[in-house]
């Protein structure tokens, strides 16, 4: 039986259970999404957007699905500490895609909490947002998520409200069997509002996981949003992550992704700029060795004049790791005075490591400034020699250079304490000391 069929059958058999443990708003688009998934299937060879990542192998595994939305016995607030700790963040947990209950925040009108719960209480407030961007792209893997997803996180910041603390969401994958996890994150930042969201991915047991995540982001006029995404899982974990962003006029969005440890990661970031003066900054860093696979795919659409977009992606690849970056910038006919730059810089430390890079420009307006650059290379011999001459051992010198290489991606982060933490983590990672997250009770068991 082919892979798709397993999930199609599961969907039909378990449809009632799926709906029962979710809410009407999230149940409504399920059938249509499934029909699309059925039609398109898992992206096959020859699908340009998935050119560098094959998903059929990781989906072949017989995964369990958490249909009943069960929560583990431990309390993550007590037992789990993320590596990016001590940041004074407002902490939330999704365990296997289910929101681990917490007392809602006191701030007026701001909602951070279970998507399912809020959708059940106020469906009319989320109806204009939920699944609007994801459905429009018709990506079969996002449709797959829409069909099965039952819960997730909602971040709702009303007009002219500034959320001071960084909101941190920790995704924990915790299971005794191989498991597939679906989760949804919906972010609505209304006009003039401001928020920062930090996402961390962790796994606690050496099982195979497939996590499917869809993030929909709506940023109103003059609003600011930062999303930082830190992935630290193990090499049996596959993650397909779709981020859909819609930006109104003069809004400012930063999305920064860091992949420190993973199995297979595919990040799809779509940004639609529908209001003049919007600015987006996408950046990503990956340190991959062994058989890790990191694929970042971005698509920025300049739909109106005077928008700017910046992209910076840096990879360090060792062993037989595979890295891919494909970025596309589309400047539509009326989007004059657009400014866009893409940069993809990569280090291959080994002849078996493999890097694909593909920055693309598609431009239909004439008064624009667009550029892209891509490089693949190795460490500068002269710089190494210079340092060795001054008594720095070669391994240390290499480390320093690699560290310097990725640091400008980290410098894009607008939370100083997180920046510092990431500098520390990458250094540990380069030294090979970071095989599991330090300090948390779960990992040390």
């Amino acid at each position, binding site marked *: 039986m082919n892979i798709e069929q397993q999930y199609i059958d599961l969907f039909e058999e378990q449809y009632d259970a799926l709906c029962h443990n979710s809410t009407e708003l999230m149940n409504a688009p399920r059938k249509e999404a499934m029909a699309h998934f059925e039609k398109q299937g898992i992206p096959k060879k020859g699908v*340009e957007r998935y050119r560098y990542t094959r998903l059929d192998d990781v989906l072949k595994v017989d995964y369990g699905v958490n249909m009943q939305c069960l929560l583990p016995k431990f309390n993550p607030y007590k037992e789990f500490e993320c590596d990016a700790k001590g940041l004074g963040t407002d902490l939330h947990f999704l365990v296997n895609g289910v929101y681990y209950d917490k007392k809602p925040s006191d701030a007026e009108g701001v909602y951070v909490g279970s998507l399912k719960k809020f959708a059940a209480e106020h469906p009319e407030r989320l109806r204009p947002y939920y699944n609007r961007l994801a459905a429009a792209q018709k990506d079969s893997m996002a449709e797959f998520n829409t069909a099965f997803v039952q819960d997730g996180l909602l971040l709702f910041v009303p007009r002219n409200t500034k959320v001071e603390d960084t909101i941190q969401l920790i995704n924990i994958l915790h299971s005794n069997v191989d498991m597939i996890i679906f989760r949804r994150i919906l972010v609505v930042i209304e006009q003039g509002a401001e928020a920062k969201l930090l996402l961390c991915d962790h796994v606690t047991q050496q099982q195979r996981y497939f996590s499917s995540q869809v993030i929909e982001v709506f940023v109103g006029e003059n609003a600011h949003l930062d999303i930082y995404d830190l992935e630290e899982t193990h090499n049996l974990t596959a993650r397909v992550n779709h981020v859909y962003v819609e930006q109104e006029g003069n809004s400012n969005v930063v999305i920064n992704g860091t992949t420190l440890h993973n199995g297979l990661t595919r990040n799809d970031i779509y940004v639609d700029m529908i209001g003049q003066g919007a600015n987006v900054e996408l950046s990503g860093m990956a340190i991959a060795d062994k058989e890790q696979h990191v694929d970042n795919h971005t698509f920025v659409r300049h739909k109106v004049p005077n928008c700017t977009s910046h992209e910076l992606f840096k990879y360090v690849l060792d062993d037989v790791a595979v890295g891919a970056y494909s970025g596309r910038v589309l400047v539509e*006919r009326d989007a*004059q005075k657009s400014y866009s730059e893409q940069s993809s810089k*990569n280090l*291959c*430390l*080994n*002849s*078996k*490591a*493999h*890097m*694909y*890079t*593909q*920055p*693309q*420009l*598609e*431009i*239909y*307006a*004439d*008064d*624009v*400034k*667009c*550029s*892209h*650059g*891509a*490089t*693949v*290379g*190795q460490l500068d011999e002269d710089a190494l020699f210079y340092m060795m001459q001054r008594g720095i051992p070669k391994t240390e010198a290499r480390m320093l250079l690699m560290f310097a290489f990725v640091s400008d991606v980290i410098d894009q982060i607008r939370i100083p304490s997180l920046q510092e933490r990431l500098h520390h983590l990458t250094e540990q990672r380069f030294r090979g000391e970071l095989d599991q997250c330090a300090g948390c009770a779960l990992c040390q068991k």
Partner: protein
Amino acid sequence: MKEREEQNQFVKKVAEGKYKYGFTTDVETATIEKGLNEGIIRKISAIKKEPEWLLQFRLEAFRYWQTMTIPKWAHLNIPEFDLQSISYYSDPTSKKKGPESMDDVDPELIDTFNKLGIPLEEQMALSGVAIDAVMDSVSVKTTFKDTLMEKGIIFSSFSEAVREHPDLVRKYMASVVPHTDNYFAALNSAVFSDGSFVYIPKGVRCPMELSTYFRINAAETGQFERTLIVADDDSYVSYLEGCTAPQRDESQLHAAIVEIVCMDRAEVKYSTVQNWYPGDAEGKGGVYNFVTKRALCKGVSSKVSWTQVETGSAITWKYPSTILKGDNSVSEFYSVAVTNNFQQADTGSKMTHIGKNTSSTIISKGISAGKSVNSYRGLVKVTPNADGARNYSQCDSLLLGDQCGAHTFPYMDIRNETAVVEHEATTSKISEDQLFYCNQRGISTEDAVGLIVNGYAKEVLNKLPMEFAVEAQKLLAISIEGSVG
């Protein structure tokens, strides 16, 4: 200054004539019936009195082609065309046995080539260019054959080479572009009619530029020529290719193959000025140009350099590429692609690094005007054994007008840690400041745009041989004519 103005005046005059190669020539032409099937292929082969192996090659390619479909990945809007409704062989010289001397060539034909600015006769001695002219499907006349023969250089039409040097042709044909390569390569391998063959023996530096001029004349025909260039050890050749077609309302198909084999320390310089009929201002007619060009740097320290100026064709689908197999081999790709009105171009280069210490350079300049779409698509591939590979790519796009599109799709596929690969691209319009500066000095906006565009393309034009560079400059000016509002 005055000189420049005169030049601009001249360019304008030329430009007002629009597509000046749009005439047709009234020569007797033998065209076989339309359609494509095994019978037609056998017929072409029989007309050309080809040996059995070549017929088998064609049939094999045809059978393979039947299993294929038109590639859809390019950023092009390719209208449906019926491959059964064109004739695959058209011979303007068929009433004669084949030209032995100038007297044998149909005077109308000589006239045509004179109009195109390619005098086939002795005047060429002055510029020192040997020409093989291909009209519709058949090579009309090759000049200077004897002079070249003295040095052991073979420069002849493809069919003649098949007759006279079958071993050479058989050894190298399809060794770089196999019939299984792509849809249009398979089609060409099945129905190719003629083309040029060049062989430069060991240690010979070809004393003159070799040149082929292609022209589609007859209506409802397609042109499918093949060029094969073999440069043996330590040799050098510079090869030029030019193309024109008459102005017709219906579109014509051109699907060619160019193969270059470069042995130890040999160097081949291949320059193209492509000026097929681009269709009228409403986008009607024009040549569909689907060309497969590939060079193999087989020997150590060999070098292939591609230079192209693409101004014509309604649709251009063309990726001159090089396989750098020999250690220390070098390849360069310089391109200017101009699109105006409804033209569409998807062009670029592919560099495959296999040998050690190989290096490649890609410089691509796209200029789009009117309602045209111009894309750069390129691949740089470094295989695991290609230690010390080096690539530098730069593609710039210039937009003249707000209705056109300029796109860049570079692919990089790196599997070696010692490789250094760089890619840079920019897209912008002509800067207001530059225009203002020119206007201030009394240069009209139109002339200023011409100047700026020529300056922008200079890096590439400089790589062209002298005679071509002049022609290319004029072409550039004509192509962007009327695009400044």
